[in-house]
């Protein structure tokens, strides 16, 4: 095959087996070799400084790497380096950073917060997170609620009052709103007439004769006016709805397509009633958090 002249002049490892079997010597590039040595040195330093080797049930903890942190409930701990402690330390730093903003918010009145561009921007951005964590499960991420179940916080209709103080009270102590069912005490016609009357209150088309009868039931035998008021505008100390506005919180009149469907929606509520509960948050959120949420909810809709 190859003549003596063309034979490559390569190095061999120097050993010969079976007389003529030899191995080429192809050295690694030196830059590669030195990089490899450097990684070895790096690894050894790493083993010394950081947790590395399992030893029985335990492991080597590393040296000079203590992390001291304070937890949210005020306990101070010191551990060897680990990512969990590192995280808790970062949380501690973030908490301390946030504390001065919260102190400001605590010291200000709602009016002062809403007249400061920077304080209101802070309250809004922090409340967005609190709202998403605590309130969005029922009131939805945007605060628009679910008709028939959870009130919409974006409109300007407030069952329990829309002032800062009322909203703060609602979040702190919770509310239970209860409308009794009238299917036992009112006849089917009376319920139908009341429904026509309620439709007419907010400007929907209704049968004039039925409206007249319905009005009589509303303020008389039905006893509706006892809670909703003689003018049907509701009373916020007991959470009774204003029936004269265009906002529907339980009966989905706005979402119904036909006049019959609208009436059905109202009749259903009159027949069966509705009980809704807003839980109290005083044991789950701090007063500052409730204050920030109050500001946020107030600004979401048309707070009073």
């Amino acid at each position, binding site marked *: 095959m190859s003549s003596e002249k063309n034979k490559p002049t390569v190095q061999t490892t120097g050993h010969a087996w079976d007389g003529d079997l030899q191995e080429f*010597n192809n050295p690694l590039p030196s830059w590669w070799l030195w990089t490899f040595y450097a990684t070895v040195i790096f690894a050894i330093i790493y083993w010394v400084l950081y947790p590395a080797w399992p030893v029985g049930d335990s492991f080597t903890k590393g040296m000079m790497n203590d992390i001291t942190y304070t937890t949210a409930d005020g306990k101070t701990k010191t551990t060897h380096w680990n990512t969990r402690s590192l995280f808790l330390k970062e949380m501690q730093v973030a908490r301390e950073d946030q504390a001065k903003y919260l102190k400001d918010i605590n010291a200000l009145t709602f009016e002062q917060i809403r007249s400061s*561009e920077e304080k*209101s921007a802070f309250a809004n951005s922090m409340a967005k997170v609190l709202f998403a964590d605590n309130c969005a499960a029922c009131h939805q991420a*945007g605060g*628009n609620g679910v008709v028939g179940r959870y009130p919409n916080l974006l*409109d300007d*209709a407030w069952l329990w009052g829309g002032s800062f103080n009322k909203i703060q009270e609602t979040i702190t102590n919770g509310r239970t709103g209860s409308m009794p069912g009238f299917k036992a005490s009112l006849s089917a016609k009376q319920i139908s007439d009341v429904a026509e009357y309620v439709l007419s209150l907010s400007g929907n088309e209704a049968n004039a004769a039925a409206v007249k009868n319905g009005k009589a039931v509303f303020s008389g035998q039905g006893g509706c006016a006892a809670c909703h008021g003689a003018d049907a505008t509701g009373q916020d100390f007991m959470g009774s709805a204003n029936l004269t506005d*265009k906002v529907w919180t339980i009966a989905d009149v706005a979402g119904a397509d036909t006049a019959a469907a609208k009436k059905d929606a109202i009749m259903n509520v009159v027949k069966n009633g509705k009980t809704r509960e807003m839980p109290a948050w005083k044991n789950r959120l701090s007063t500052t958090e409730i204050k920030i949420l109050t500001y946020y909810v107030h600004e979401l809709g*048309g707070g009073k």
Partner: protein
Amino acid sequence: MPESLYQERIEIFPRSVTGRYRSIKTGILIFAYTVYFLLPWLRWEREVGSTQAVLFDIEGRRFYIFDLVVYAQDIFWLAGLLVIAAFLLFFVTGLAGRVFCGYFCFQTLWTDVFIFIERLVQGERNARMKLHKAAWSNNKIFKIGLTHFLWVLVAFFTGLSFTLYWGNAPDLMIQMLTGDAPFAAYATTLFLTLTTYVMAGLAREQVCTYMCPYARFQAVMFDSDTLIVAYDEKRGERELGRKKPAKGLMTSAERDNASVGDCIDCGYCVQVCPTGIDIRNGMQYQCISCALCIDACNTIMTSIKFPEGLIKYSSEHALEGKKTRLFKAKNIGYAAVMLLTVALLIWSIATRSDIEMLVQQVRQPLSVTLSDGSIQNRYDIKINNKTTKPVKYRISIEGLDGAELDMGHFTEISLAAEHSVKVNAKVRVSPGNVSQSRTKFNFVIDSVDSKIKHKVSQQNIFYVPEKQLIQK
């Protein structure tokens, strides 16, 4: 020891030279160093923000460049700057070859300084070569050690100066020395110290020949009219080639008669070359066009009273005796693109608005019905005051009939200098006023005292659900 598969680097000991191009290079070097090392210390008066003339404030997300403050959203100017730099490089290279490599590249500048230090400590080329070959002695240890110490010192100040552009220089300097500076400052300084020391001290011409991509792609922009550092082979060699000066060959005219080249083969041009090549072998990729061989050759030619210019800036066409054409479509094209980008960049900087407003509709939900039946949409408005003064803003809406804008407690928004804020805005329309589901309208922002440049308007959409439209 196994035989190495790689060629070892042949150490280069460039000899010093004086002349026109050396002076130009030294001038550029002094200018560049003065600017680079002193600029971070220059103060600049501003109403707000840093008092440093040039500061790249990453934390505050703005770059201060004298009277210009560049915000994060203006960062596309950087693209303009890079385009200009690229086409300037193309243009100059097409015209005059590797001018950047020879005179302006930091590799060239820093290598120059490192060679200067080497010469200062170890002496001229011959002394350095002797020292290099000599056995280790106290003298050698001292001289080599001192050279490397000075190199590291220059490298350290190079790294430190770079770092000082990214923080308030006097504070950062003190922090660096007392150990209070941020990790990034130390890491940057260390990294640049290391790279400067390795690149300018140890790697030198290898950076240009093996690592630098510009060196390779600049060849693409060359043509036969491009200026190159060239050896006049016709005159230097003639028919009989180079010869040392001897009797009867002492003047250019005598040598011409004897058909002997003007090159006396003194080797000075090779000795001064920082990349260690012989320019007489023609154009080579290692040549960075530093023109030191021109200075060297001219020095010798003058001393033996030969005409200058045996090695000179020339073009292939000129060497062949043809005309050099510099104004050609390619070069004019490079220049045109460059000037266009410069114009665009200046226009963009000059017409930048002092306010920035970003309006985003809240989409969760898109609309809500209020108790009187009117429809409300909500918008998040972000306002950015780019001026160095506090400004009072007024926001209004245009193009939405019967609409009411409600920004909570605010009718006017005051914003501190160089600050931004987020405002919640609600827009209400009674259903009778809107005939379509999506109405386009504008948010307009203007300053109350109208001291600022440009009012800004941004289009958005008012949404009404189909059902509410029918109901009216």
